């Protein structure tokens, strides 16, 4: 028998479950152990320990009216509810609530693609719609529209957006929430709200005009607990027309300064519109590739506390036809346009970085793809599907057992601090994390050659998976390390862009400017919109008034 929701009597709980069933049918109220177990975070860093977040039940509505009905009941009985879209937030907590005993409001069945405008390029979807669903829909209907997607692509558009998730394709689109355009939200008392232009009855611009009139409130429903988002609009783009990939090699370590400055210019000017990826070009520096076999080279690479022999490596790179760094550049658009993008970028970077070399690789693709080109995706030098907005789990499978990963973990906890888009901050963060991972005795890459990812338009984020296994000692060490890494990052002005529920209080507390005035304001909004504190208590570090003293870190 699953646990009772906190603060709810057994008789009230029985009544509430019956009333839930009256709204959505008994088949969609899950209150037995087998079903409830499935809402635990499969990558829980508290696996089988007393602190693991548990669930009292799950309810799965099919319509917004059913969501309203469920929320009215929950509000009357003061039952904590935890909405999830598809619960595929792996590495960041899955479907796990912040508060044990919450009822999961599972919105997976609400999977309607409400509208697709392939003329002015926007969409309106429900929370259960995944990136696979959308791609299949667009393909079946031969629509002239595309969106950025993440890998793994089995998650929800809305869930990804509300967690500030990211795609892999275009500069204007990779940051999902940046493309958000209008919401439908059920408040704690069941009130239905539409934001932006959608608040005007008969509006024809809900997904076109972001603001409507008045305060722009969409942001308060992300990484927070003020309402249940039941529909969300997004700006999209026309279908892919073409793709070109290239790499830039830089001879010297310090060339990175001019390179990232050039990236800022070329990206912000809209000249290079695809993903940039940074790496070293020296053998043995990638954590996904083989180690250096040349003992002289291996000795120069350093690692952990040991800094690399930069002068020696620059000479090695020059003598052996490598760059010290290599930067992958991706361009989207018609072939003539991407050719012009690349020509301009080469000229621009050549003027800034003497000795930089340039090379296109893989095919220049034109859409619609031929069967042959389509079949070669995900096989180097052909692009990954995700770079073209085609769903895949290829990158996700990097965590699975493979020739390079003979002993996979049972999950991971992502540590993902945001830094400034500058070589100064990249180098500084490499040094800080090299030291920290060594001090904490946790596995990581050779940070002297590792890079954050450049998904967010103007601020890269590190993606550092910490080990989660079935060994409690390993998980305890991961928890300790994560909290310490948060502290170390905070000292440098960096903070994660998202966190799993057990760590959201600690992350939210990094925002301590003016005695945590941001969090105090968030709490006032919580008290006003959800006075009984029934929605996702603790999410984003925001606890309802009656739980604050006990729960806050």
């Amino acid at each position, binding site marked *: 028998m699953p646990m009772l929701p906190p603060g709810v009597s057994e008789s009230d709980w029985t009544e509430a479950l019956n009333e839930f069933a009256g709204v959505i049918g008994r088949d969609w109220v*899950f209150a037995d152990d087998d*079903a409830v177990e*499935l809402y635990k975070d499969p990558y829980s860093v508290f696996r089988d320990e007393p602190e693991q977040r548990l669930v009292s039940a799950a309810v799965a509505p099919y319509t917004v009216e059913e969501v309203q009905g469920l929320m009215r009941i929950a509000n009357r009985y003061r039952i904590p509810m935890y909405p999830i879209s598809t619960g595929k937030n792996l590495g960041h907590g899955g479907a796990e609530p912040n508060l044990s005993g919450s009822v999961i409001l599972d919105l*997976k069945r609400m999977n309607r693609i409400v509208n697709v405008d392939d003329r002015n390029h926007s969409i309106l979807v429900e929370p259960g719609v995944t990136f696979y669903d959308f791609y299949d829909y667009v393909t079946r209907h031969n629509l002239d529209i595309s969106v950025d997607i993440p890998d793994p692509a089995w998650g929800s558009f809305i869930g990804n957006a509300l967690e500030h998730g990211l795609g892999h394709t275009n500069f204007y689109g990779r940051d999902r929430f940046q493309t958000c355009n209008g919401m439908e939200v059920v408040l704690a008392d069941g009130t239905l709200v539409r934001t932006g232009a959608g608040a005007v009855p008969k509006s024809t611009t809900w997904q076109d005009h972001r603001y409507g009139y008045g305060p722009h409130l969409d942001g308060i429903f992300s990484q927070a607990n003020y309402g249940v988002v039941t529909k969300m609009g997004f700006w999209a783009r026309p279908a892919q027309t073409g793709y070109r990939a290239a790499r830039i090699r830089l001879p010297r370590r310090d060339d990175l300064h001019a390179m990232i400055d050039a990236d800022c210019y070329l990206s912000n000017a809209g000249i290079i519109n695809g993903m940039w990826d940074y790496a070293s070009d020296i053998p043995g520096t990638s954590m996904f590739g083989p180690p250096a076999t040349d003992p002289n080279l291996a000795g120069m690479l350093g690692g952990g506390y040991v800094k690399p022999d930069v002068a020696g490596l620059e000479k090695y790179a020059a003598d052996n036809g490598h760059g010290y760094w290599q930067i992958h550049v991706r361009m989207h658009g018609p072939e003539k346009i991407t050719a012009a993008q690349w020509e301009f970028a080469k000229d621009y970077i050549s003027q800034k970085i003497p000795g930089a070399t340039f090379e296109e690789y893989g095919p220049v693709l034109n859409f619609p793809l031929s069967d042959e080109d389509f079949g070669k995706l995900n096989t180097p030098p052909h692009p990954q599907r995700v770079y073209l907005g085609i769903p*895949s789990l290829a990158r996700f499978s990097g965590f699975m057992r493979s020739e390079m990963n003979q002993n996979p973990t049972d*999950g991971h906890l992502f540590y993902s601090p945001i830094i400034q888009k500058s070589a100064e901050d990249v180098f500084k963060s490499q040094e800080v994390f090299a030291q920290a991972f060594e001090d904490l005795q946790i596995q990581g890459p050779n940070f002297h050659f590792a890079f954050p990812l450049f998904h967010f338009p103007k601020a890269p984020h590190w993606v550092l998976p910490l080990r989660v296994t079935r060994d409690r000692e390993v998980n305890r060490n991961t928890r300790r390390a994560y909290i310490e890494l948060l502290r170390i990052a905070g000292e440098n002005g960096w903070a994660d862009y998202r966190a799993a529920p057990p760590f959201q209080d600690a992350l939210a507390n990094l925002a301590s400017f003016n005695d945590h005035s941001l969090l105090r304001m968030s709490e006032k909004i919580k008290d006003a919109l959800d006075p009984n504190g029934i929605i996702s208590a603790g999410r984003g570090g925001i606890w309802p008034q009656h739980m604050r003293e006990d729960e806050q870190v």
Partner: protein
Amino acid sequence: MRHWKMLALSLFAISGNAIAQEEHPGEIVFDTWCEICHGEDVAWSGGGTRALQVKYGGAIPAELLKRTDLTAEFITYYVRNGITSMPTFRYTEISKKQMEDLADYIISEANNE
């Protein structure tokens, strides 16, 4: 290759082709949830297939649809409990009935090879 399979299924559905009507109900579940990781083409959708290839070293087939040693109980256990990076799947994703169909489909496909 789910992309092409979905296209084909939609064409069959439009034409009312008898082939669509004969589709095993578990195949839809497999195509939706399993094939994206346990597919035939490792580059496309074979993270799970590659993992099983490495785990068993070819002693048994890496593709689930070629395994003749699987039971419904075994398949259900891993869908509901996950393993390594494979997460659990909830009843709103794969219902109890769909789970039975899925297990039946995997077992029957392998034994029909």
